[in-house]
């Protein structure tokens, strides 16, 4: 009898888990996709990784201990997953090889970039996207996601004062860059 109950509870919690993931996708999938994109800067890769992140959430849901909000927990998984990807063999060997082509000067790309840079909004976005990852991450979470510093600290496992410094430093880097362009 207890075995039957156990079996039913498992089934129930499986369905519940599926439902939770479904809700998380409705609520956060676009924001997460944007977060992932700021790390990897490629739409298809960002979509693949976001997909993996939700599957990971499903697998780890049992470990969610309610000590933080579910949003913080999901974002933490997402940040770690992106960083794992950027550290991975695949990314370092294959993606970077492809990137070498970006450094070979090409007239058409150059012209294109100039046209884009004329647009003020584009140049701000580009400047943010070109910040080193630790600054980009902090800027995105604070100004795009509008997360409080304490939450950013939880999501990224970085000390709150370090986050403050990074935001300040990012602002300086960006001002330098934008002034140069003017």
């Amino acid at each position: 009898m207890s075995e039957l109950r156990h079996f039913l509870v498992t089934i129930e919690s499986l369905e519940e888990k599926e439902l939770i993931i479904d809700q998380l996708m409705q609520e956060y999938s676009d924001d997460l996709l944007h977060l992932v994109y700021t790390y990897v800067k490629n739409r298809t890769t960002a979509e693949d990784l976001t997909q993996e992140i939700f599957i990971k959430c499903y697998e780890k849901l049992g470990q969610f201990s309610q000590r933080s909000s579910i949003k913080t927990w999901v974002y933490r998984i997402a940040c770690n997953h992106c960083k794992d990807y950027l550290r991975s063999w695949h990314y370092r060997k294959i993606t970077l090889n492809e990137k070498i082509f970006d450094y070979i000067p090409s007239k058409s790309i150059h012209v294109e970039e100039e046209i884009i840079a004329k647009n003020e909004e584009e140049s701000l976005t580009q400047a943010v996207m070109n910040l080193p990852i630790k600054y980009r991450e902090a800027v995105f979470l604070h100004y795009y996601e509008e997360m409080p510093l304490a939450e950013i600290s939880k999501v990224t496992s970085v000390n709150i004062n370090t986050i403050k410094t990074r935001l300040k430093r990012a602002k300086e880097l960006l001002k330098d860059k934008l002034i140069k362009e003017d």
Partner: protein
Amino acid sequence: MDNPFNNLKNVMKKTVFKDLTFSNERKDAVKEAIQGKQSQLNLHSWKESTIIALLETLQLESRDGYDISTLLFQKHELCFQNNEGQLYTLLHLLENKGILSSKWINEKKYYTLTTKGKKYAAAYKQESTKQLTSLKHLIEEASL
């Protein structure tokens, strides 16, 4: 100069993130993957011949996962070829159902048929000659 980030949210939405949404196809792919994982937890999604072959490898002695995998391969049970991880999913499932028990010896996990497991393996052999009930059925019944 005021804070360049003040308007960042709107600006990014208009530029890099324009039309960047997690599509319904992507959401469905996640749901499908999750359902796939769930069905592995259900004995019915495994081929009967695979389960039998696995139980047979343990009939004489306890073995670790690697041993079982090699033996299955020798028996031409190719279900886990290039997909060895699945074997452990099935082993855990059978352990949860009380068909197998396991023990750690020298950092290896050895699996053994429990009395229940032996009973069902034997019952299957008898039944299969009569072609009556399936082993799966018996196991499912036993776990209820």
